[in-house]
């Protein structure tokens, strides 16, 4: 039987919930039935991409408005891990960000999307009914 996991969660647009969402990602990595790679590494990576995507949604898309919310879905089916993070904002141009940060000039910001792009196979950012959605996909081994 194929392993199918679907998690659908909404939290207020506040950074205090980053740890909760990250923890769910970690627990999924540790629970997967057939994963053959380093589980603790996958756990950290899921925690990280969820934290980065959600922090972007909270700060940049939803502009820190605590009345808004962030909607996250995590789906695993046939070794494909899919994560969607929905915001309620005007969006930002994800393609305008450099593919790699400026490693020479030591900047404080600009590593979040680079980290997501490095750890996931496919990353898109598109409009949806009430805002934008950052979608990330990875084929698990």
């Amino acid at each position, binding site marked *: 039987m194929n392993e199918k996991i679907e998690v659908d969660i909404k939290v207020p647009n506040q950074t205090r919930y980053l740890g909760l969402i990250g923890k769910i990602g970690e627990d999924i990595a540790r629970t997967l039935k057939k994963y053959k790679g380093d589980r603790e590494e996958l756990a950290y990576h899921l*925690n990280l991409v969820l*934290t980065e995507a959600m922090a972007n949604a909270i700060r940049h898309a939803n502009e820190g408005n605590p009345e808004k919310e962030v909607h996250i879905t995590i789906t695993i089916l046939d070794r494909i891990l899919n994560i969607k993070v929905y915001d309620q904002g005007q969006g930002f141009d994800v393609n305008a960000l450099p593919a790699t940060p400026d490693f020479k000039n030591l900047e404080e910001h600009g*590593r979040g999307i680079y*980290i997501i792009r490095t750890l996931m196979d496919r990353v898109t950012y598109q409009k949806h009914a009430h805002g934008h959605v950052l979608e990330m996909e990875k084929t698990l081994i």
Partner: protein
Amino acid sequence: MILKIEEKGTVVLIEVKEERLDAHNSGELKTQMLTLFEEGKNDIIVDLQDVRFVDSSGLGALVSGFKNASARNGNLKLCGLQHQVKSMFELTRLHRVFEIFPDSTEALASF
């Protein structure tokens, strides 16, 4: 966020007593370091031994501290990095920027 701050001669040791250093709490570490710089304390060690998870905001706070310390002819050094946390520094090439020590004793001895 819980930070334990101790003066060791001219060096200030900041122990981050949190499991996560992320977009939620890293601003507090940054502010704390700025306070120390304003007091003229420019040599800092940040001990991350209790930190299991760092995100890009956490790294950004440490980069901010490093830049401020360097601009004041001081130094910000790190110690106690857990395996996965160290991987984050490698992923973002920051392991080439910071001086990283196994523990605070070795970090202190390097000043």
